[in-house]
């Protein structure tokens, strides 16, 4: 495959994977939200498309959305749209990041992170 084919592939392919959609239907798939494949998959679930199956294999164990995108070599925006479909099909669960706001700094959490860094 020539360089220009590779370039075209990267731009065209993601849209094909999302059926032309560029916006996710849910906002829960942030960069460090973790997703996990439901095992076994629900019986009523539709058979996953090949790219969906790739995602499901990658998240047999919990994996962050950003990691998933990097491992699949796909833009985060595309992976998120596909994850929305998988969630709606009951094929994955999503675990939100630890909530952090400037008003609620969690001392226990911070101390754990600091201790973990100290062990590096």
């Amino acid at each position: 495959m020539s360089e220009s084919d590779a370039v075209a592939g990267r731009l065209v392919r993601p849209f094909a994977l999302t059926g032309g959609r560029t916006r996710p239907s849910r906002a829960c798939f942030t960069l460090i939200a973790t997703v996990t494949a439901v095992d076994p998959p629900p019986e009523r679930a539709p058979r996953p498309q090949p790219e969906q199956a790739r995602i499901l294999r990658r998240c047999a164990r919990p994996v962050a959305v950003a990691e998933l995108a990097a491992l699949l070599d796909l833009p985060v925006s595309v992976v998120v749209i596909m994850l929305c479909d998988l969630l709606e099909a009951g094929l994955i669960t999503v675990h939100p990041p630890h909530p952090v706001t400037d008003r609620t700094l969690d001392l226990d959490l911070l101390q754990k992170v600091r201790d973990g860094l100290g062990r590096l």
Partner: protein
Amino acid sequence: MAGSEASAAETPAAPDTVKILIAGGFGVGKTTMVGSVSEIVPLRTEEPLTMAGLGVDDLAGIERKKATTVALDFGRITINDRLVLYLFGTPGQQRFWFMWNDLAVGALGAVVLFDVRRPEASFAAVDFFERRGIPFVVGVNGFDGAHPYPPEEIRDSLALPEGVPVVLCDARERESSRDVLITLLDLLIASAVGGTGSA
């Protein structure tokens, strides 16, 4: 999540995740720092710029454009089996941060890396975190490990508020990068303790 416990016996529980941003101008050592403390080789995800803000109808002609992507490099530090810290090296140009809408949202804090040879490259990052009230420390990444200027001088040149720590570091060194992160955590802990008045 409460509704998703059915298969918990089979699948390990998802850990809580937190993130810290490593920011600063282009070529200041962000990915180097991520790589020196990460337990994995830094991962990269790229977002095609042409996708942002374009409706599907606007796709005609995209195939003729050069692939313009903005890269996001990140690493991971497993704190314990229930908690994972992600480090995101932010794109050098803040105007591209919109590609990852949630990049700064929910971050514990940030490290702004500073290169004494190109101080202006880090001004925008300092501005960004100051304006959003995101706690940060400044890591002065010495070229080849050399530190010709004392931290006070760098603080002045960035017009930093008193509470922002300035740490000399070498982003290539694991211990040095780790110590910058620990300085950030100490700042966060001090402000959490101060904020609740329990100290």
